[in-house]
């Protein structure tokens, strides 16, 4: 009897336990307009971050993941992606800085410039990259000025000879100040600063689209360099230069176009056996 009675509270307890129900969580309050806006913004920035990362723009990707994490702090995927973008930045900064310093030491200014710009795009506060770029620009500007000074001296001597005077005329603003034009980039281009020269030519042509004589001169210089490259067997560079020459000229030059086509064909033929392999 006692034994049977002893089981009773136990059974009661079991029944109670079985019937026990977890307390119901309070129903979530309807999401406010601000929360909806935040969710939509987070989705938008998430998408932007992925797009930036896909094209290798890790600085922008990291920025976008940062914004996503601000909006959704416990988004584990965003945290992982953010950390990955930061790691990619560190890695690429290291690689490009190394490449830029090597190029700079070897006097390859254009390559050094591009590498340092890549470093700064990822790490805008990188003092070493900024220093290299500043030094390259200082040297470049000094070269332009040196060439400008030589030309000014020649003009001055010619003017003295023509006027039979002992000194250049005292200067108010004169048309001479327009003569900055294309001499410096041409000299730099001829001296081997191909990319810098091309950039300056393009800027000049964009600024003076109707200066036919100057375009003719610039384009001829670039074309000549292209032919020189072709003769040295640098066909890809030759093609690039001749195409640039055609574009800078702004008018069709059948001979140049034919030359470019011939090089293109030769390059394609040279590649064909490799492709088959």
């Amino acid at each position, binding site marked *: 009897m006692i034994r049977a009675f002893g089981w009773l509270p136990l059974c009661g307890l079991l029944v109670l336990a079985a019937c026990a129900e977890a307390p119901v969580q309070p129903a979530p309050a309807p999401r406010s307009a601000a929360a909806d806006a935040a969710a939509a913004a987070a989705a938008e920035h998430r998408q932007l971050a992925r797009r930036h990362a896909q094209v290798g723009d890790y600085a922008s990707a990291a920025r976008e993941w940062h914004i996503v994490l601000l909006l959704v702090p416990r988004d584990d995927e965003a945290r992982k992606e953010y950390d990955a973008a930061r790691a990619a930045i560190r890695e690429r900064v290291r690689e490009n800085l190394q490449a830029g310093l090597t190029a700079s030491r070897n006097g390859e200014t254009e390559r050094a410039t591009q590498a340092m710009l890549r470093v700064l795009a990822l790490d805008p506060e990188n003092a070493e990259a900024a220093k290299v770029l500043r030094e390259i620009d200082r040297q470049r500007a000094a070269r332009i000025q040196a060439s400008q000074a030589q030309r000014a001296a020649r003009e001055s001597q010619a003017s003295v000879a023509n006027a039979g005077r002992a000194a250049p005329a005292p200067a108010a603003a004169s048309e001479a100040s327009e003569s900055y034009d294309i001499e410096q980039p041409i000299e730099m281009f001829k001296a081997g600063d191909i990319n810098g020269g091309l*950039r300056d030519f393009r800027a000049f042509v964009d600024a003076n689209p109707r200066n036919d004589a100057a375009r003719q001169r610039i384009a001829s210089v670039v074309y000549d360099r292209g032919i020189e490259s072709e003769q040295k067997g640098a066909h890809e560079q030759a093609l690039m230069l001749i195409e640039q020459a055609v574009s800078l000229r702004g008018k069709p030059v059948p001979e140049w176009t034919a030359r470019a086509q011939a090089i293109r064909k030769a390059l394609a033929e040279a590649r064909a056996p490799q492709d088959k392999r």
Partner: protein
Amino acid sequence: MKPMLPPLKRSPVSALVAFTWIAIALLVHGCATPPKAPETEPVVRADDGRLLARDDEYAIVVARSDDSAQSLAQQYLGDRRKSWWITDGNGGAEIRPGQVVVIPLVLRNRIGVYSDGFQTIPVLCYHRFGSRASKLTVTPAAFTEQMDYLARNGYHVLALKELGAFIAGREALPKKSVIITIDDGYRATYDIAFPILRKFGFPATVFLYTDFVGAGDALTYSQMKELIASGLVDIQPHSKTHSNLTLKLPDETDAKYRERLRREVDTPVDVIRDRLALASYAYAYPYGDVNELAVDYLSRKGLSLGLTVTPGGNGFFAYQYMLRRTMIFGNEDLEAFKAKLQTFVRTAGR
């Protein structure tokens, strides 16, 4: 095979104890609060009715109907003029009510270098203004058209001084920033250019060669004071006599050349200080020509910027004593003017 463990002794007491523990465990489990699901919903901190989130670098807000980039810049950045931080960071468009706006509270990228290229600041160089256009004379109509183009197309016309902070890496500048300079000190700067600049609220720097003052078509000091008082125009040195600093005169000894160079740098700085109470920080080289010796004199005189007439924009890394400046010619049309506004240079890629 022997069992590893001794068989359980099933006494009623031990069974009762076991059942009691099971019941307690079930009860505790039933009453327990379930763990929180991982948070994937946005955190909304609507403390001022629009702030969604904020840390040291960004504030994210939902714009209200009365918000603009200027009002948000005033509230979150403490300066309405920093509204471009907000517009540049949000696609450049106007702020719409309900839009989620990301406000950068600090600008880490002050140098304008991005994965696809870098920012450059063009410095435009004018000389004379007059009714008959020539290479160095721009008509009032053309100048108005050019300023109107800048105003309508989102260009920020900045004071030259701001360029110094940019190339030193101290201050970021808005995308599409442009600087206006006017060389020599012609009276037409006062008669023609200034009213147009004032209409648009655009600042400009006049580079004065001081021996010119007193000539018939030159600015007078009282006109220059009026220009300065407007808060839009700054006057800076452009030499004493406008002679080419890189040319040594026939029979000029090194010592005499150095002495002449020193005068060409020092005199206009001193005159501008004494007559106009202005400190000089920038120098435009006559004809845009300069050499290292002239740079040395500029530096000794405390000048921090030197401007040439090599065309193109200035990246943050531009050499401070050989800055590029693009001449604006009176015989060119608006298309040519537009082509000179180089504010971004695309690079080869990543």
